[in-house]
């Protein structure tokens, strides 16, 4: 892989964390009964 390896590893980890958090927190919040769904 070209470029700055350390910088890219940090960025990649944060990329995976954001997607995971968005899906996990999103699904839990949307399923709350108070949302009337």
């Amino acid at each position, binding site marked *: 892989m070209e470029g*700055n390896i350390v910088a890219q590893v940090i960025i990649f980890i944060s990329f995976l964390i954001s997607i995971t958090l968005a899906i996990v927190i999103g699904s839990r919040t949307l399923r709350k009964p*108070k949302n009337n769904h």
Partner: protein
Amino acid sequence: MNYVITLGMIGIYIAGLCYMIYRNPLPKQDFEEYAVGGRSFGWAFITMTIVGTWYPGSLYIGWAQMGVDMGIVNTYLIFYTLGSLFVLYLIAGPLWKVGKRYGVKTMGQYFQIRYNSKGLRTLGGFAALLIEFPWIVTEMLAAGYAMQAITYGKIPFNLGMTIIAVIFIAYIVFAGMRAVIIADFYQGWMYLLTGLVMFVVAAYVFFGGFGSMFMEVRNLNAEFLKIPGAAAGWGGEAPGILFWPSLILMGIAGAYMWPSLFARIFAASSTKEIKASSRITPFVAVIFAAAVMWFAVGISARPEFNEGDSAYAMVNALSSLGPVAVAVISVLILSGSLSMMDSMVSSWAIVFVNDIISPYTKISSKRQTNISRICVIVLGFGGLIVSMQELPTIFQMVSRMYQGIVQFFPAVVLGLFWKRGNKLSAWAATIVGLVVTGIFAFTQPDFVPALNGMQGGLLALAINFVVYIVFAFVAKPEKNTEEVFAVQRMKDEELEAVK
């Protein structure tokens, strides 16, 4: 190898987005669900959807270009973001209550309730739609560029824009505002976590931190750290000192008048959720904007990234970190463009049905939803076709549109907080504001040198306020004014009981 890494990351991103939208379809097929997501979203969603909609894909292109060419002047974005969130804090509570009580979905509909005028509802809807339309062009261009970068030039510009248009049009047709808010929530995380990490890392890799970055910029050209910025960036002559504050004021007053952001207020499940969101949003939104805008100023000290078109200097700089960074900056541009375009196109379709068709014909809720879906397709592809033409720069387009949309500010804000405001004052003030802005738009669209760099739209806004106040004393308030103000004072639970 680089190609595989970049495309693989984009694939993960799009798969996650599709999964979230597909898992949460419309609970029922009515217009209330389609237009405001059934007024059901909590603070986390409202915060992320504000951030997701607020920061466009052109942030990394048009706004970055401003930082690279003119310097710190681009930080007006930070100040107006903060100011506009304060406006949101002031107006969201009372507006949400009026929305809940009367089923309001758009600014035009609020005008009809508050000023008892069907015509004002249509004017508000039509004018807002017309003024916001060019935004889609700026975002289509950003998306087209991102697609080109991701595929290392294999997908041409216009094809890239078309692919993106098909994706967002499809999910809005599928689940309306609900899909839009879920998508924005997903994209908000990408901004606030991955985006922030990348800009901080990049500042350290290139400059050893933000402090030494600014020192490097100062040593090279101190003009970049002054307002209104480097004269060369302005084509030889910078505008007067009032230009910068006028940009900020315009942004603060105009921000929540955009149909796409105005509609967000009604998607919240209660005033408590909006208030909780407005306590968090200013911090996260401003920290992120500062990282991006500062880094753009820093790049002005690295001319190697600025060869050719300065609009792409930030993307060039970040891409030099390697394929992962190419993927992330492309995802950021794509998600910014998608979340902006989906919000706009869905809210325009809703405004069209709600304020231009519904007041004059009786149609069922299901029919309203279906007409909205057709509008989404027409407006989305219409925007795509316009984007393929020759256009002014992104920043010019944005600052010109703000001068128009801001003219609704007095009728909304004074309407919410001053009982004397009436139909005549709202009509007269809005028309005068729009006409004066229109005159400037054709003569001096960017700023007025005779007013020391102030924008014509700000002068129009001042006249607009004066006209509103004068006419408020000329005519009497509408009969329903007391009732609307009583609703604004009600508690959320009382509103539920009334329903």
